[in-house]
C-alpha cells in the first residue's frame, strides 16, 4: 500500500470511530461500483448516511473540506442512490456527510464533521 492510501485508511478508521461515538451504526465501508467508491455507509437513526472522509497531514495544501467540490458532491449523491438499488433498499431519509481528519502524527488528530451537505 502506498503512503497516501495508508493515510486515507487511517483517517477512515478515525472517522468510523468518531461516527460510532455519535451513536451511528456502520453498515459498510469502501463500497465500490463502476461509478466510484463510498468511504462509509452508516445509519443515523432512520437516516442513511453516505460519508466521505478526507484526510490530510497538515493544512499546507488547503483544508480537507476544500477538496470536496460540487462534482464530488453530486457523485456522492448518485452513489448513495446506486447503493440503495444494489441492496434493494428504499431509504427515504438519505444524506451526505463529509468528515475531515487532520492528523499531523502528533497523536492528537482533529476530526471535523459536516452533516447533510449539498
Amino acid at each position, binding site marked *: 500500500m502506498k503512503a497516501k492510501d495508508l493515510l486515507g485508511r487511517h483517517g477512515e478508521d478515525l472517522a468510523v470511530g468518531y461516527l460510532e461515538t455519535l451513536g451511528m451504526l456502520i453498515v459498510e465501508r469502501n463500497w465500490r461500483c463502476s461509478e466510484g467508491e463510498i468511504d462509509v455507509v452508516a445509519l443515523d437513526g432512520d437516516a442513511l448516511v453516505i460519508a466521505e472522509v478526507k484526510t490530510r497531514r497538515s493544512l499546507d495544501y488547503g*483544508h480537507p*473540506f*476544500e477538496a*470536496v467540490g460540487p462534482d464530488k*458532491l453530486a457523485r456522492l449523491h448518485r452513489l448513495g442512490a446506486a447503493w440503495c438499488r444494489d441492496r434493494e433498499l428504499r431509504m427515504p431519509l438519505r444524506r451526505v456527510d*463529509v468528515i475531515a481528519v487532520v492528523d499531523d502524527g502528533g497523536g492528537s488528530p482533529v476530526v471535523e464533521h*459536516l*452533516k447533510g*451537505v*449539498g
Partner: protein
Amino acid sequence: MALGRTYSVALVGLNGYMVEVEADIGQSLPAFVILGLPDAALNEARERIRSAAKNSGIPLSRRKITANLIPASLPKRGSGFDLAVTMAALRAANDIRATGRTVFIAELGLDGRLRPVRGILPAVMAAVQAGYPDVVVAQANLAEASLVPGATVSGYRTLARLALDFGADPQELALDFEPDDADGDAGAPGETAPCPDMADVSGQGEARRALEVAAAGAHHLLLTGPPGAGKTMLAERLPGILPDLGDHESMEVTAIHSLCGLPSSQVQLLRRPPFENPHHTATAAAIIGGGSGLPRPGAASRAHRGVLFLDEAPEYERRVLDALRQPLESGELVIHRSAGTAAYPARFQLVLAANPCPCGKASGKGLDCTCTPMMRRRYLARMSGPLLDRVDIQLQVERVSLADFGQAGAEEDTASVARRVRDARQRQVQRLGPLGLETNSQVSGRVLRGELRLPPGVTRILDHSLERGILTARGYDRVLRLAWTLADLGLRDSPDANDVGQALGLRQATAAAA
C-alpha cells in the same frame, strides 16, 4: 454568534449611501459568497480577503461565508468594501469583538496591508451626515479623510493592527509586518503648482482688463484673435486672479477631485479654483462625464468652481460644445448610464478661445487671410448661437505691438489684480446676498430691470442701441451685468454712463461672432 455586522459607504456619483455588511458562517462546505449586486472588483474581494486574513494571522473560517451588502438593490462597485466584508467575517467567527457603528473603507492587499481607495472624501462626508462619525481608512487615505469636519478618522497600515485594536488574539496576529509606503503615505501636503503670473503678459491692455472683469463678475469669456496673440497665455492666468474658494466650495471641489483620484501629494483641501484645459479632440463623455457602468465626472465637473478653458473652441465637435449649455444654465450635470444616474456639480467659468478663421490671419485688415467669407462664417458658426448667448464678454485680441513688447516687466502682476477682484466680489456678495446670489453673472434680467434698475440717463446709450436694433434684449441684459461688475471694480455703488459704455465695448468687441 455566527453573524457579523459592519458598515461601509457606496458612492453613486458624489452621493454616498450607507451600506450595512452582514456576514454569516454556515455549517457547509467551504465557500465565500458576496450578495448585494457586487461588480467584478467587489467579487474578486473574496480572494483578496481570504489571502489577506491568512497572511495577517487570522485565517477566515473554513466554512461557507455569506456576505450580504444591504440595501441589496443598490449596485456596489470597487474595492473599498474589502475591509468591511473582512471585519464582518472575522466578527462572525468571533475572532474580533463587535465593531459597533464604525465605518470601514479600504482595499486589502494579499499581504494584509490596507490600500487607499478613490473618493474617500465624499464617502466619509456621507458617513458623517448619516450619523456614523467613526471611520477606519487606510493610512494613505488618512489625511484626505480627516478633512471632513466632525469625522473621527483612524488610519491603519495593516489588517493585523486593526484586528488587534478590535480585540483579536495578539499571539496569532502577524504584527511585525510593516509595509513600506511605496503606494503613498500622505506626506506633507504639497504646494499646488503656482499659477503663471499676469506680469508675463506684455501689452494687451484691453484683454487684461477683460480678464479682470471676467474674474470679478464670474462672466464667461470668449477670446478671438490670430495665433500667437496670447489667448492661451491670458486664459491660463485667469485662475490666478480668482479669489480663494470658501469652506463649502472647497469641500465640493476636493470631493470631485477625490473621486478622480487625487495624487497623494495633493491630499489637502483644494483652496484654489481648478483649471481644466481639455484638448479639442475630447469626446462628450470626456468633457461632460461618462464611462461604462456608473458615470465618472468629466472635465466640466473637474472645473467646478474654477475655469473650463476650451482652446480652439470651433475645432470641438459641435455636440460637445452644445452639451455644455445645460451645466452653464443649471450648474449641474446629470448623467444617465445603465448602472445608474449620477449628478455632478459643474458650475464653472467658461473661457473659449478661437482663431478668427481657419487660417488664423483674418485679424486687423485681414489682408493675408486666404479664407473665403463663407469659410470664415462657417468656422465661427460652429460655436452655436445658444452657447455664445451665455458668454458675457466676447473680445477680440490683436497681436501685440512692438512698442508694448519692448517694455517687459512694466505690467501689473497677478497679486494686485487679484486684490481688486477680491474687493469687487465682496461688494457683489453684500449687494446680491439678500437675493440669494453671489456674482453679477448670475443676476437675471428681471432683477436687473427691477431691484437694480438704473436711471434712464445712465442707460441712454443702451436704449439707443436697442432702438436701432444693434442690441437684442438679451444682449441688453448682458451689458447691464458687465456694467455692474465694472462699477464694483471701480468701487462705485452703481454703474455710471461710463461703465455702461465700457461694458458695451466688451460685449461688442467682436462683430464676427455675433
